[in-house]
């Protein structure tokens, strides 16, 4: 089937099997290799992307649900202003090891910070990131970075602004 979807601000017209996974479309057809596959069954979060503003496991989304959708991968996030401070927080907290889970964590971080309303506790972060598995780190440093970001008002504001630029511009 033919579908049109927007990935990282660029529209793509593609011809795909209806059941082809968004993950394969991104990685194999469009060469957005930042998104990783850890399980292929919606169990690990390595393939997390933003689909129409919501975080999803791209290994679970079939092509036939994608017509007209907007997808953001880690490659797209790199252009957001808020990416710099997010990157810095993960680096300075020593959060990254093998890195395979990280594109997923970065996407989930943006989505989490965007939804954040009240002050964030560590327990809230733990619950929110239960779907992103990391085998290397023991999570402590990852969560410390996220907590640090959540506590900074200017970062939350920046996310809201970047988000608006990304999604509302096209509506």
């Amino acid at each position: 089937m033919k579908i049109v979807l927007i990935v990282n601000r660029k529209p793509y017209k593609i011809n795909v099997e209806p059941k082809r996974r968004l993950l394969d479309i991104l990685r194999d057809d469009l060469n957005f290799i930042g998104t990783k596959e850890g399980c292929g069954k919606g169990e690990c979060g390595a393939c997390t992307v933003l689909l129409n503003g919501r975080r999803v496991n791209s290994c679970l989304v079939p092509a036939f649900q994608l017509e007209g959708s907007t997808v953001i991968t880690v490659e797209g996030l790199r252009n957001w202003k808020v990416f710099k401070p997010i990157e810095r927080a993960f680096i300075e907290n020593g959060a990254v090891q093998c890195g395979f889970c990280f594109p997923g964590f970065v996407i989930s971080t943006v989505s989490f910070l965007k939804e954040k309303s009240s002050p964030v506790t560590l327990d809230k972060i733990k619950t929110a990131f239960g779907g992103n598995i990391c085998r290397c780190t023991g999570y402590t440093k990852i969560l410390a970075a996220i907590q640090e970001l959540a506590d900074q008002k200017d970062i939350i504001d920046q996310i809201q602004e970047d988000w608006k630029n990304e999604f509302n511009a096209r509506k």
Partner: protein
Amino acid sequence: MKPNPKNFRVDAAEKLHGKTQYIRDEKIEGLWYGATIRSPYPRARIKDIQFNPDFDWDTVTVVTAKDILNNYVSMLENDMPFLADKITNYYGEAIVILAGPKKDNLDEAKKHIKIQFEELPAILDMLESETSDVKIFGTNNLFKDILIKNGDLEVAKKEADEIVHIEVRTGFQEQMYMEPQGIVALPEKDRVVIRGSIQCPYYVKGALDTMFDGKKEITVIHVPTGGAFGGKEDYPSIIAGHAALLAVKSGHPVAFFFDREEDIQFTTKRHPSYHNDTAYVTKDGKILGLDIQMVLDSGAYCTLSQVVLARAALTASNCYYIPNIRIRAKAVATNIVPPGAFRGFGGPQAVFAIEMLIEKIANQLDLSPVDVRRKNLIGLGQQTPTGQILKYSVSGKETFEDVLERSDFEIKYLDFKKNNIPILEKLSKGEYPKQKRSDVLRGIGIAPSQHGAGFTGTGENVIKGKIRVEINKNGQPVIYSAQTEMGQGEVTAFQIILSEALQIRRDDVIVAEVNTDFVPNSGPTVASRSTMVVGSLLVDAANEIIREFQNRLKENGKIDFEYRQGYFYSGEKIISFKETAKMYSDLKVEKQYEHPPIIQFDDVKWKGDAYPTYSWAAAVAEVEVDPVTFEIKVTKFYTTHEIGKAINYDQAVAQIQGGSLQGIGYALYENIRAENGKFNVQGFSDYIIPTTTEMPDFEVSILENPYPFGPFGAKGLGELPLVGAAPAVVSALWMIFGREFNEIPVLPEDVFSLFY
């Protein structure tokens, strides 16, 4: 102890940007995919392989055992074939491999291959292996049988007030690296190039050199690796062999990219173990003698089991001084997927077993488990079971006391006991045990642990690891070593070591890609050896570079130069390292490792310095058990590690957190069993590894106690954090229930069955 300033990792930004290319991210022109047809029986005779003529076999390339020149994976025993020929020895053993450009056509091809089997009796229980009529290996199915003796057990028996006995079991554990196994073989004229997610490129090269009988040149290139934990130590040799065979036969690059299910079902795991241990003790808890028997389920082929067994046996007394000891350890064959390396490498099994024995001693003699441990901890000048006298960098007592104090162990122990009394009473009376949400059972447990750093016994002297440092034309030193980055921070650590030894900026040190055409064999990236052993070579190289530059400067100007803080001085002359290095950019320095002569081991008699040194740790786990659901959760985890010197303090903490959580998973969640030889899990949904909801709060502390032969005093770290975590967690369950726990993983149903 003063933490170093944070040394941010050099590889973090690329990884966060999603720019780091793991093997599946590479675009390889004309790539074919590999697939495997596996045995559906634990043991069977292969009678016939039929290729249905209805299928167009020109669309794929097929390889079977008869296509292979030397059909064995070169490892310790050379008993494992790349492809089973007449007999298959485990469920999932590879029999036929095929490759083609399209995955669906490959699936179709697989359906058109019919293998006829005659099922044979199999060994599925490790304790039946030695006496079974079925012979998998040799005459008695023993891959290795080790006996270590020190002192005289008869003396201990005579003097003991009490005999304490326990049987202990530990299960399989899957490495569960986030990136599944992935290898690509690229055929060239007389050469095959292997790229992939590989821990030990020279292992793969050795295996392929042998497989092709030297008729192909082999190049192995390490690609950024998404975790390994031992799981990419020995296993990649097999699939690299498969990919290479198909690549040569088809003329196309061939990839084996396992999906999670294939990975979890058919690749190596941690060896399950059985222990039958007896302690001879005085009534105040001093251990006079230990009689230890352990068996490791080593699966259908030997892989690395002999060395895993050696480490398990050599770790059997953990951090304790035992005057009279006998350790009998066996690695037995079964018709199950061969286990292999996994962080800790036999240590976690051995340490879990003795820690449960200690709990039982305390329980049986009505002593405090802390006191029993404290009374027996080994110290400087005392002997290990191989008669090794600990001469330096011993911190079993210090780490133990540090973690006790930091965790307020003694106070919590009493508080938690008090908290538990009414809940336990209700439970044993069969009443509903929970009045309010906070009515949970609370436990606190402790376990010390140690890990011998570097290869076991004479291993380092056999492999004689070699590195090279070259100066490039920009005046930067470039490190050529075979050590691989799998996430543990090796590249950053090597930059730190060399730059500090040369007193130059970290960014001015370059670490070359690990390509066997260019890097010397510095040994595998295993056994917590990279920082300590290979790192010490880097310091040697740095000293030689400085000396060499001084010599050359002198030749040039006929005056002596002193080196300080990155500058060569002589009278009024001053020249920076970089300027000097640019002038002499042809310099190459090679260094080869050999044990300092005071380290001696006899691996026939099992006497002497089993490891050059040990790293030490002690962990305290606070645990909650819900009295209704019996869910077990570690809420706080304190651990104190002594690793000589932390080269990268922040990342050492990171290793400790990550390794500890794997150990917590080993204790409580990670449950995988071979049912009739077939593993009963498929992925993350049925093989549970800890997520953010299972993680405890970590309180990590690092003590320093330099090892005289490590770089700046550093010892090994990578494996230790996993080793002592499980016994600390289960120790807390002994404390809550006052009952014996002797098997991991401990699942809610195991606790439930104490009451119902």
